């Protein structure tokens, strides 16, 4: 049911989609004798880098082995968030009586319709990434597998592209599991999930990171009986306790069976079912499911690139090693996006792609460590973060005080019946400088951007407290946190 070639997009805009991201009639350009910049990878990092380089008037070649748009468009943010939206639509119907609807039945998700909607969305967004659009800006787009020939050239099929500078932006792929029997039993990953053609009645999600949690909740909303298994003591290990605990409760409310501190010892087939054998701090048990989604992180795509031949080093975890300016161990080769960044998100990829071009071609050097990076897990409520966590501040010996407003005290959240969560703003103590924030709310993905702008503009809590917000608005919680700061100053005065 799940082979990658049986893309359900077929017949639902697949031709138009491919026309944009991998045109069948693409005419390979004639390679120049020497490019200012050769980019390997046509995802968010590579695409942003190509546009930035062309804006500087540089000659640019971009090599893509599969489809333009990268993981984000093809297998990541776009399709997963489309499923999340479908799940929320169904959940809203289930809960609509609270808002005055008369009795409604249990809506059933039609996975075919869900996937068709996802495909239409993907096709529409793909226009941004289209090969023709890129070529129209003057980028030479090559489709094929890239391989470094030496420290100054890359081969793609028969062509050999020499470069002054190169950028590796090949992204990442789902991490494989070493669970005994799992490959034989068969499982989904983010690369194959969106080819599902029937709704699994029972779905096991292995891994409690962002995608695992999002998909567990979305499929539960769409009617699957979902069990999520996480080897660590909390979901979203990179987020703080209070956020992760709210997510745990939210998953449980959606009907997800949550299993933390759980090691999976084996997977097998029995009586036509997929069986997962697990161990929860000494207690062994098995669960039977119809499908298994493996979501245990992603690893850099570096196979076949012959990085050694170009003197490009990797880290212990397989990422390309870069300095703070995104330069690899080969001074003429840079890297950006998932292939080198610890946080593998599309917005970071895009930003680092642009930054790499800027640094490679003589701009005032920019450090990726200085980026203000908002990120979000799109569960309900959403969990978003920007800047420092408390433990980051402690590590740097920055005294910090946090100002928290609960969404249950925010008028718009109360009105909307979406009052789970909080806004936490971390302030450097003794100043009004915002150094980070965590927001858990139904629209945290939007609210966190306000904090990112505030941090970028170096707006302090005092000024923020005076900025009028629309009423009622979820983001008013941000202003309320700033007002709590101002109030605490008044109380502190003798």
């Amino acid at each position, binding site marked *: 049911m799940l082979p990658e070639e049986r893309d359900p997009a077929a017949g639902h805009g697949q031709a138009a989609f491919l026309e944009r991201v991998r045109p069948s009639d693409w005419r390979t350009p004639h390679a120049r004798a020497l490019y200012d910049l050769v980019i390997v990878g046509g995802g968010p990092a590579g695409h942003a880098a190509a546009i930035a380089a062309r804006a500087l008037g540089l000659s640019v070649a971009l090599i893509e082995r599969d489809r333009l748009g990268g993981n984000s468009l093809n297998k990541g943010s776009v399709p997963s968030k489309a499923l999340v939206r479908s799940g929320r639509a169904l959940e809203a119907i289930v809960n609509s009586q609270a808002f005055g609807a008369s009795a409604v039945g249990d809506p059933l998700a039609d996975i075919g319709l869900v996937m068709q909607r996802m495909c239409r969305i993907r096709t529409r967004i793909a226009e941004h990434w289209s090969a023709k659009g890129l070529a129209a800006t003057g980028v030479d787009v090559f489709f094929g597998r890239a391989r470094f020939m030496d420290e100054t050239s890359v081969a793609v099929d028969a062509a050999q592209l020499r470069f002054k500078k190169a950028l590796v932006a090949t992204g990442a792929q789902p991490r494989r599991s070493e669970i005994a029997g799992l490959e034989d039993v068969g499982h989904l990953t983010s690369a194959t999930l969106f080819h599902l053609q029937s709704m699994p009645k029972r779905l096991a999600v292995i891994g409690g990171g962002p995608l695992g949690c999002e998909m567990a909740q979305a499929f539960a909303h769409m009617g699957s009986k979902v069990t999520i298994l996480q080897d660590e003591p909390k979901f979203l290990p990179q987020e*703080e306790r209070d956020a992760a605990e709210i997510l745990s409760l939210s998953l*449980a*409310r959606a009907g997800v069976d949550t299993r933390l*501190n759980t090691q999976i010892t084996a997977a097998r087939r029995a009586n036509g079912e997929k069986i997962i054998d697990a161990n929860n701090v000494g207690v062994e048990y098995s669960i039977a499911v119809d499908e298994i989604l493996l979501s245990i992180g992603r690893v850099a795509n570096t196979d076949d690139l012959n990085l050694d031949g170009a003197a490009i080093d990797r880290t212990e975890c397989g990422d390309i090693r870069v300095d703070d300016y995104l330069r690899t161990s080969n001074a003429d080769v840079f890297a950006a996006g998932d292939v080198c960044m610890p946080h593998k998100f599309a917005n970071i990829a895009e930003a680092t792609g642009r930054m790499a071009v800027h640094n490679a071609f003589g701009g005032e050097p920019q450090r990726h460590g200085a980026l203000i990076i908002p990120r979000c897990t799109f569960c309900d409520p959403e969990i978003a973060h920007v800047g420092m966590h408390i433990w980051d501040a402690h590590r740097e010996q920055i005294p910090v*005080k946090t100002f928290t407003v609960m969404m249950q005290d925010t008028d718009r959240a109360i009105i909307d019946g979406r009052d789970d969560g909080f806004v936490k703003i971390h302030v450097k103590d003794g100043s009004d400088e915002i150094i980070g924030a965590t927001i858990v709310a139904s629209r945290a993905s939007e609210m966190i951007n306000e904090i990112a702008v505030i941090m970028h503009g170096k707006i302090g809590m005092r000024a923020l407290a005076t900025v009028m917000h629309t009423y009622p608005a979820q983001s008013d919680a941000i202003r309320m946190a700033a007002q709590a700061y101002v109030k605490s100053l008044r109380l502190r005065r003798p």
Partner: protein
Amino acid sequence: MGAARRILTNTIDLPDDALLDRLQRAAFAYFDRFNNAENGLVADTSRPNSPCSIAVVGFALSCYPIAVRRGWLRRRAAAHQVLATLQFFAGSAQSEQPDKTGYKGFYYHFLDMQHGRRVWQCELSLIDTALLLAGMLTAALFFDGEGTEIELRAVAHALYSRVDWTWALNGGDTLAQGWRPETGFLHYGWEGYNEATILYALAIGSPTHPLPATSFAKWTFTYQWENLLGIDTLYSGPLFTHLFSHAWIDFRGIRDQFMRGVDSDYFNNTKSAIAIQREYAARNPHGFIGYCRDLWGITAGDGPRNHEKVLTPRDRRFYGYMSRGAPYGPDDGTLAPWAMLATVPFEAAAALAGTRHLLRRYPEVCIEDRFSSGFNPNEVERDAPWLSEGWYGLDQGLLVMMIENYRSGFIWDLTRGSSVIRTGLSRAGFSGGWLDDAP
């Protein structure tokens, strides 16, 4: 319910000190009624076939001196009971085998009442061992006389000294939270403030296997000073986490590095936690029945399990035994009726006003003058709010100690003289207040 109402009508008419005396004595009576006098083990709950919880034994050992002081128990009888308990632990089997009483000086969380062997395949528990040891050391401080009491002190210190705290680091910077013979060390991912301060004080203060002094700073690495509901606090949701270490240690005026940085102390932080509970209950965002500034107490405890029915279309559920907290939750409208009174050393007026309000409105939560673990007026069974069956030993022990600390400061006075506690706190970075005075 009629009997409960009649008894409590009398109780509630008492002036504060008499009310506290009656409730304190009734709480202490749990240890006499639900123990095995031969080995000193005390049942986790009053329910049939309940195993022993080693933490409850720790509370019991701390309460015997109070009973002597209050004249509820003769000193000699109390010393014999304490010694019997200590001798049981000293003679119990310690090994890696899964059916013993402990290992490396630590003990399994739950033991069978008769023989003291591990039950339920439970974990070797560090925090519960710490509470047990705190009880042993408290008893050793009080029983400072001759004869039996000499032996009592010697056994208590031997049991404390044999605990191999460094083993429980498991090669890391901070303690594992438990260990199982079947699977090894357990890490529950504790983050932020919680009840473990006394665990670190005892572990760092050990004369034989002390943790490095830096381990406490590592432990507090995720502490977060927060303005929450307009109140400055080091947040931890369940109220008990602001009380357990405090039952033994007087945190007034003594500060570690974190508290020096924020110009507060852990005693004041518990006051903040109480203020947050009261403010949250007054705002009552979920509209739970009963919540108000005089009815709060959201903490770990029993709940209306097996009643996972939907309250509203938002699919709100009741939970069973769970660590509840405010304002982050989880909160299902279940309150711990003992919790307000357990805060009496910190906010006496609020604790007493809340307790009196509770006894007037829900007298059934206090049968035989002893508080149940939990009740939930949002879940009605047979025309009455859901009520946890029987009593939990932890609740009773905490109440006896906290009421005594309010009435006389007796336990705090005792432990201020403990070289172990002084050494542990000082090495962990605490200073100021009574720590700067001569013992």
